[in-house]
Structures are given as C-alpha cells and as structure tokens.
C-alpha cells in the first residue's frame, strides 16, 4: 500500500510534466492538424535554455523558468514562420515529416551547444521530506505547484481571453473560423507561443526531477502523444487528464512489470484508446 501511494505521487509528478507537453501538442494539432514531432525536443531545448540562465546568472531554476519559457515560445514561433508556414497549405503529412526533421535539427543543436553528456541544474543532494513512510523531494512539490499554476493559467487564457476563445474555435471548426473573420495567422502564432512556453516548462520540470540530456524530450514524445490521443485530440482539458492518467499508469505499472517497460505502458494505452475509443475521453475534433 505504501509503495502504491509512493508510486502514485511519482505518477502525478510525471503526469503533470506530460500534461504540460500534451496541452501544447494537442493545441497545435487542433489548430494546424498535424502531430508535432519536434515537441519533445522543444521541451529539451527549453530545459537547456534554463540551464544556461542558471549557470550564467547563478539563479535558482524557478527564476530561470520564465526566461526559458519566453525563449522557447519565441523559438517555436520562429520555427513556424521559417519552416512550417510555407508548407501549411500542402498535405499534413508533409508538415509531419518536416517536424520530424526539425526534431533532429533541434537535438543536434543541443548536442553542438551544450554537449551530449548529462547535466543537472543543481549539484548536491536534496534532502527529501519524510512524511511517515513516504518520501517527497521539495522539488517535487515545487514542480507540482508550478505545473498546476500553469495549467490554471492556460485554462483562464482559453476561457477568458478573446484569443483563447478564438483558438478553441479554430480547433473546433476551421472553416467557420475563417468565415467568421478570425485572423488565422495571429491565432496560429499564439498557439505556437503557448505550446512552446508550456513545452519549455515541461522540459525544465523534467530536468529538475531527473537530469538534462539531449534526448530527454524525444523519449517523452510517445507518452505525450499517448496523453493527447487518450484525452481527445485537440482538447486541452483532455490532454491534462490524459497526461495524469498516462503518468500514473506508467509509474504504477512498475508494481507488476519491470520499470524499463514504462514507455510500453503508454504505448499500450494509446493503442487500446485508438481501438476502443478513438475520439478520446473528451470527444476530440479529429
């Protein structure tokens, strides 16, 4: 039982990281209709941006987080303008392949600039809190709180602002958004900015929880897509739920199967979802 609760805590932590990645991926899918394969590497580069801020200015990670989010948002918008925008009108599969290429470029860029060895934000040992038989690292609480704040921020953005509503509208019905006079290009830019910022946050949290390495985002892409599909493609709230479910399932699975099979659990959930409820928990737009 203790082990179960401990794993559940780990699962919620992993889940909130996945959720942040999945919200961005699902919004990009909803608005642009393609699976963004470079999303994991966008997370990684966000984590490395934060690393630079932490080491150069000697700041705590949490202070570096907004900078990393801003830089990654700008990078995502830039990539869209340079790479994706010109091929937007062709088949979505071409966009998908282009995003795959972007993923490779980003990863190589990380290796070029920061090297391919493991990095950490803070060296030294963080003393975990002991709550009865359970252990909790202060960082874990920090990640959970920060992720929750970001998710609430996304919620307020989507429901209270004109741009957020326009984003949901475009994800709902692209053609109607066009005839309503919603400026597609502006909405797309905002989608990338927010998707990029959330990806960076997910990357930083992942780096805080474990360590930084160039493939840290890429390896998380599958669980993120699984969360996106489970939650209903194009549905931000579904993606949050999907992320938490996948995260918990991955951690809890170690009770019965070896830990190295964690990604397989995400994959299995994705396959089962696609077979039995392809529209996801919250009916997706695709």
């Amino acid at each position, binding site marked *: 039982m203790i082990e179960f609760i401990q794993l559940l805590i780990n699962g919620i932590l992993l889940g909130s990281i996945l959720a942040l990645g999945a919200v961005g991926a699902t919004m990009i899918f909803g608005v642009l209709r393609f699976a963004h394969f470079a999303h994991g590497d966008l997370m990684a580069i966000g984590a490395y941006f934060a690393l630079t801020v932490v080491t150069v200015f000697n700041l705590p990670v949490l202070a570096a987080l907004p900078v990393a989010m801003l830089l990654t948002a700008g990078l995502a918008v830039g990539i869209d303008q340079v790479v994706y925008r010109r091929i937007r009108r062709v088949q979505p599969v071409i966009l998908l392949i282009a995003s795959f290429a972007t993923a490779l470029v980003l990863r190589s860029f990380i290796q070029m600039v920061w090297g391919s060895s493991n990095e950490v934000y803070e060296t030294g040992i963080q003393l975990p809190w002991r709550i009865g038989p359970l252990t909790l690292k202060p960082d874990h609480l920090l990640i959970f709180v920060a992720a929750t704040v970001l998710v609430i921020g996304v919620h307020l953005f989507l429901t209270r602002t004109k741009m957020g*509503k326009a984003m949901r*509208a475009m994800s*709902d019905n692209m*053609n*109607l958004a*066009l*005839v*309503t*006079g*919603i400026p597609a290009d502006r909405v797309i830019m905002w989608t990338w900015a927010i998707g990029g910022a959330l990806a960076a946050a997910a990357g930083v949290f992942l780096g805080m929880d474990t360590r930084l390495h160039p493939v840290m985002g890429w390896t998380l892409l599958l669980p993120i897509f699984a969360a996106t599909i489970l939650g209903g493609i194009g549905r931000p709230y579904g993606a949050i739920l999907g992320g938490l479910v996948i995260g918990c399932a991955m951690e809890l699975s170690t009770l019965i199967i070896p830990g190295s099979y964690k990604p397989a659990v995400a994959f299995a959930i994705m396959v089962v979802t696609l077979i039995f409820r392809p529209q996801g928990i919250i009916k997706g737009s695709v």
Partner: protein
Amino acid sequence: MSLLQANGLYAGYGGVDILRGTHLRVEADEIVVIVGPNGAGKSTAMKAVFGLVPIREGRVAYMGEDITNRPPERMVTRGIAYVPQESNVFPSLTVMENLELGAYALSGDHRPRMEKVFEIFPRLKERRHQQAGVMSGGERQMVAMGRALMVDPHLLMLDEPTAGLSPRLIDETFERIKGINELGIGVLMVEQNARQALAAADRGYVLATGENRYEDTGPALLANPEVAEMFLGG
C-alpha cells in the same frame, strides 16, 4: 446603388468553372433567394461573393465598392455576414462564446449587439451557457444566425438555412428571416425548400448549370408554369 451587385461571375474549383456568367443583385431592404436544381452552383455563387471561391472573371460590388476576391475577414468588417450550410457553429463553445466570436473582427463592446441577438432569439438567452454542439438542429441554426448578426451586418448571406429542419421549424425560420430583414438587413439565401422560400422572398433567381435562368419577384416565379414544372417539381 444596390447593396450587392455581382456581374458575369466565372468561378469554380481547380480550373473548372461552376459559375458561368452568373449575376445577382440585392437591394438594401430585400430578401433575395437563389433556387435551382442540385449542382446548379447556388452555394458556389454565395461562396464566390463572400471570397471563399476564387472569381476568375466578373465583378462583385458592395455598396458601390469593388469587393471581388476580398478575403472573408474583410467582408465581415464591411458588414457582410455569411452562414454556411453545414457545421455552422463552434460545437465545444458555449452559445455566448459562439456569439462573441462572431464579433471577433470588430472592435468595441459587443454586449449591446449580443442583447440585440438575444431579442431576436430569446431561446438563445435562456441557453447561453450551453455548449452549441449538444443543442437541437433548430437551436443550432439560431446560434449560427446569431453569430452572423453579431457583426451588425447590412447583408446577411444564408446557405440553406432550413436544411434538415422539421416542417414546423422551417416555417419558423422563414418568419425569423423576415423579421431580421425588417430590421433593415438585406438577405441573400440559397434554398432547397424553393416554394416556401420564394413565398417569403421579395425576389428570386433560378440558377441552372451556373447560369441565370429566370429572375423575377417571388410570387411571379411561383406562378410561372415553366419554373414550376422544371424546378419546383410540378
């Protein structure tokens, strides 16, 4: 000066002309209906006027200003609103959000306009927090028209507003359209329920294979035996 005047339109998809010299005119206080058999180019004519299908030849003028091939968002800000035939609401958004987005392209406070829409469709006020996707067909049609009215249009374009509605709702919809017209909004619509539509309209066009066949007042077209035989099913 006419509210809308389209002359000699040639337009279509992928180099194939669906419209072949079509012309249309709507006066400021009119309800004008386009009828005709399937594939006549009725919907294409609407889309071409609204800038959704590229016009290869011909000219569209709105209040004397050339608006040929303008992008839809420019149409909206000039006071032309268009309601597509199918999937014409944002299903996961609430009624209020649907209406709000209708006014996206306009600056200023949208609340007075929303109150106006609620006056025309009291039912929408009751259900304003409802998701549009779970509403009935008739209610969705109200949301769609309400969304279009949020830009305070001078010209309202409706593509088959009664498609898929029950006979009772069809009558109601035509009454509503007349009511909207009485507010001083010109209406251009495409209709399958040709008889009822012509009865509600000031003028009508009969389109076939992308060309104008007949053009007259609504009652005159209804009384025309040729039109009745060929296009209204006897």
